[in-house]
């Protein structure tokens, strides 16, 4: 684009214009070139501001569209555990509950595995192995979320229904309190399956992030520890982790932000039932899957507005979580390195 414009303005001697040692007197008069600088500068500034405008427009438009729902239900919208299109009464609690529970469960599953992968890639694996494994993990991040959803529904859900849940239930079900987490009919789809799929989806982000920040630790620190007789795990837990702790937390929070907003994969496997159940295997719903399932079929202004209100809640929650994550990551940047987290 810039190149085309440049051709327009400086068509007189294209070859010399293109070379690095360009001399301005051979092209169009300087005045024109300087004036174009103003145009180019303004255009790029405008586009940069476009990012800000887009983000605030999303927030404002969703807020305006959600207003009727907030007006009709008031603060009760946030705490009401009811979602009934027939009687036009809506509350966000069951969706928010599902969103938060699946995201946190997913992080609980994904973070230890991601930590292990990052540990392996940076400290243990020889170079010939580290590179392909790293690429494989990064490719996992490239798979579209709808594929995860399909795979979860048609491949993982049967496994949960026939193997995982019956096994867990027979072992842990009889225990009081904890047991209720695992009891219940076996559907295959539900909070637990959704959490697993989400965990697989955020795993590559967290693993790649941790790998990158582990690599910022200066070799001298690690070698000093080895010289004192430390094992690899000692170095990992007592040298590397203290060095990157804040940024690592930031990376985990960024992963959480992704897990909260994920839509398609969850829609397939969460079960889409508006209820809050103590069992982890019971079908539930999340904000994003509620929207994906019901928005096109929503009849009536209040129904649509309630869904938009859910969207606004989701947007605000992820905004806050992502902002917190970025701030944590930035703390490392300022102190030690020039890198910016993904």
């Amino acid at each position: 684009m810039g190149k085309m414009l440049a051709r327009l303005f400086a068509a007189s001697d294209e070859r010399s214009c293109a070379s690095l040692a360009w001399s301005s007197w051979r092209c169009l008069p300087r005045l024109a070139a300087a004036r174009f600088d103003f145009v180019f500068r303004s255009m790029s500034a405008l586009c940069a501001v476009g990012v800000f405008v887009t983000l605030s427009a999303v927030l404002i438009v969703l807020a305006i569209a959600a207003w009727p729902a907030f007006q009709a239900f008031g603060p009760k919208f946030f705490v009401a555990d009811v979602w009934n299109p027939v009687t036009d009464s809506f509350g966000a609690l069951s969706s928010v509950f599902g969103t938060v529970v699946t995201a946190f469960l997913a992080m609980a599953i994904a973070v230890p595995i991601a930590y292990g992968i990052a540990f392996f890639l940076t400290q243990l694996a020889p170079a010939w192995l580290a590179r392909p494994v790293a690429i494989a993990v990064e490719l996992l991040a490239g798979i579209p979320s709808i594929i995860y959803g399909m795979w979860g529904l048609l491949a993982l859900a049967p496994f949960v229904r026939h193997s995982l849940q019956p096994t867990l239930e027979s072992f842990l079900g009889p225990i009081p309190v904890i047991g209720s987490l695992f009891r219940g009919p076996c559907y295959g789809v539900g909070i637990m399956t959704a959490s697993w799929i989400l965990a697989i989806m955020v795993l590559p982000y967290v693993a790649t992030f941790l790998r990158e920040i582990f690599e910022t630790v200066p070799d001298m620190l690690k070698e000093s520890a080895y010289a004192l007789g430390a094992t690899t795990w000692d170095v990992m837990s007592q040298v590397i982790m203290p060095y990157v702790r804040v940024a690592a937390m930031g990376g985990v929070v960024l992963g959480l932000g992704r897990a909260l907003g994920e839509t398609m994969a969850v829609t397939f496997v969460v079960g889409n039932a508006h209820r809050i159940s103590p069992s982890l295997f019971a079908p539930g719903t999340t904000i994003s899957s509620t929207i994906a399932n019901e928005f096109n079929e929503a009849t009536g202004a209040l129904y649509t507005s309630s869904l938009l209100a859910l969207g606004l809640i989701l947007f605000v929650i992820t905004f806050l979580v992502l902002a917190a994550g970025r701030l944590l990551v930035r703390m490392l940047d300022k102190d030690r390195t020039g890198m910016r987290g993904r």
Partner: protein
Amino acid sequence: MAAFSGAFGIQRRRVYMDRFARFLAISASGLGVALLAAILATLIAKGWDALSSAFFLLPTSAPGQQGGMLNAMIGSLMMSALGMAVAIPMGILAGIHLAEYGRAARSSTALRFLNDILLSAPSICIGMFVYEILVRPMHGFSGYAGACALAIIALPVIVRTTEDMLALVPDRLREAAFALGSPQWHVIVFVCSRLVRSGIVTGVLLAASRIVGETAPLLFTALNNQYLSFDLSKPTASLTVTIFHYAMSPYDDWHKMAWGGALLVTFTVLAMNVVARVMTSGRRNT
């Protein structure tokens, strides 16, 4: 560091602990690779048979009849191309602003921050936003609305990579060009951008691979269309939304088509990812 010194028992415990941690780390990595392999294997096993000539040449049909995904592929291509056509110039220019003109400005710090937020914002919210600003006022779903939603998703990816790449250009080169009397736009377009061209293309590829696989923002914007259509002002089919409907349906032949579509989308996206990665790794080595 107390654990480093000390008695034989502690020593042995540390060694065992180390072995245990190594074992767990290796298992975790094995699990990561195995997951990728499992997903790809399932896709190939179930999707390969669906990729017949009918799949590529016929539009979608009712269950039980022979059909393909032609309309969905064309819809996906058109919307992604239009979305990229909007996002590429905007994204590159915005990246240039952040890395060059407004490099030190305080507003740029805020813009970088907001761009990073937009980068991971829930795509379904973007879909709802476009529904509110385009679909509802125009009283109809359209491919243009879908392309708009995709552009919003691609934009921050391109901004981010363009800025990161331009930041790699050493200031000495800029100063050398300035010393020859070049105006700043000239330095940016002919010196800086040229040096990191492959990096910028990588960002564009990554953005394209992301929007080709997006479903959520298209659900309420482009909707779907079971007939072959080149008109973006009408509801437009896309591969991903079609896969969604087919996979959620109870029909076996639709499931099979969905697997075929999934295979196609996944390998397109992964191929773009691999190409992008090869391009940047080549850059880093030189």
